[in-house]
């Protein structure tokens, strides 16, 4: 079984948004959590690090899609030099955040998430690689890989829309 620390960037499941300006951080955080939960993922906040000048929020969403395969979303929000600013928006005083921000969106799919094949020694491991490499090869590639790839584009576009970024369009 693969674990959460796996590097999916080589498969293309890796997106970065960089942003600098004034934004509603609490709203953004709630938006990300809601997006993950609304898409039927189990949400976990894996790490929060407040170490001036930066703050890091690491999250994880997990969703079992079959008895064998599971999707994993691993978004991270990095903030530098974050300071609260008072802004008057639509006649109301609001406290927003001014910062440099990096949002990393990682994701991937895990096969054999219960680790049944791992427990059984070398023979079962060979069967697992045969299953993944030959029998389920196209299922993995078409049903999970492509789906996940475009799913992450949706996630990225929705975050950009929330931040009112100019590049918030996606034809895929």
């Amino acid at each position, binding site marked *: 079984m693969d674990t959460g620390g796996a590097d999916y960037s080589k498969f*293309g499941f890796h*997106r*970065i*948004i*960089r*942003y*600098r*300006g*004034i934004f509603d951080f609490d709203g953004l955080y709630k938006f990300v959590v809601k997006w993950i939960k609304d898409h039927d993922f189990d949400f976990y906040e894996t790490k929060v690090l407040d170490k001036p000048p930066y703050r890091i929020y690491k999250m994880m969403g997990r969703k079992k899609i079959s008895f064998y395969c599971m999707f994993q979303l691993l978004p991270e929000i990095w903030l530098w030099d974050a300071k609260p600013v008072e802004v008057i928006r639509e006649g109301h005083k609001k406290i927003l955040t001014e910062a440099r921000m990096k949002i990393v969106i990682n994701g991937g799919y895990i096969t054999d998430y219960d680790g049944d094949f791992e427990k059984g020694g070398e023979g079962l491991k060979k069967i697992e690689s045969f299953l993944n490499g030959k029998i389920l090869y196209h299922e993995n590639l078409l049903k999970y890989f492509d789906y996940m*790839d475009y799913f992450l*584009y949706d996630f*990225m576009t929705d975050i*950009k829309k929330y*931040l009112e*970024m*100019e*590049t*918030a*369009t*996606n*034809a*895929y």
Partner: protein
Amino acid sequence: MPPTVEFYAPVVAEQLNYEGLFSMKEVFRVIDKYFRTKAFDKKIIFDEEYQTEKGKYIHVKTEYYKKTDSYVRIQTRLWVYANELVEVEKEVDGVKIKTNHGKLSITFDAFIQTQYLNTWPAEKPTGFLFMVLYEQYLARPRIAYWEGVLRHVLTELRTELAGYLNLNKFLYEK
């Protein structure tokens, strides 16, 4: 050892520059939609947006690629820069619309990657020899064909963008 792949680059660092009124969202939509209709896959390498004193600064690097078969993979790279981008309101046919004003610069690159599956094990001398013979003599027309396709794809994209930005209006004036 990673597989040895060959690169052919039919388009290198071509540029499109523009300053004036345009909608940033529309520019990205034109690019995205064009590649989608051509069945390319997309990869965003990075995506930056900074608010500066003179307006927004945007820098996006994207790659659109397609595996044509098990031997040839074609890929484009785009760097989109926007500087001093501000939102403006314009009246078109009596309707007020929001659009942007700023400087836009797009750099295009395209290349072909052959034997991405390491068909000929190129780390071995015999494999390398077969690869060279195959690509120089047998697959030469096929690779040249895909080079032409890539050149065509990027020229067409530039034309689409030029059409959207109205860069060719003086070409067709009577």
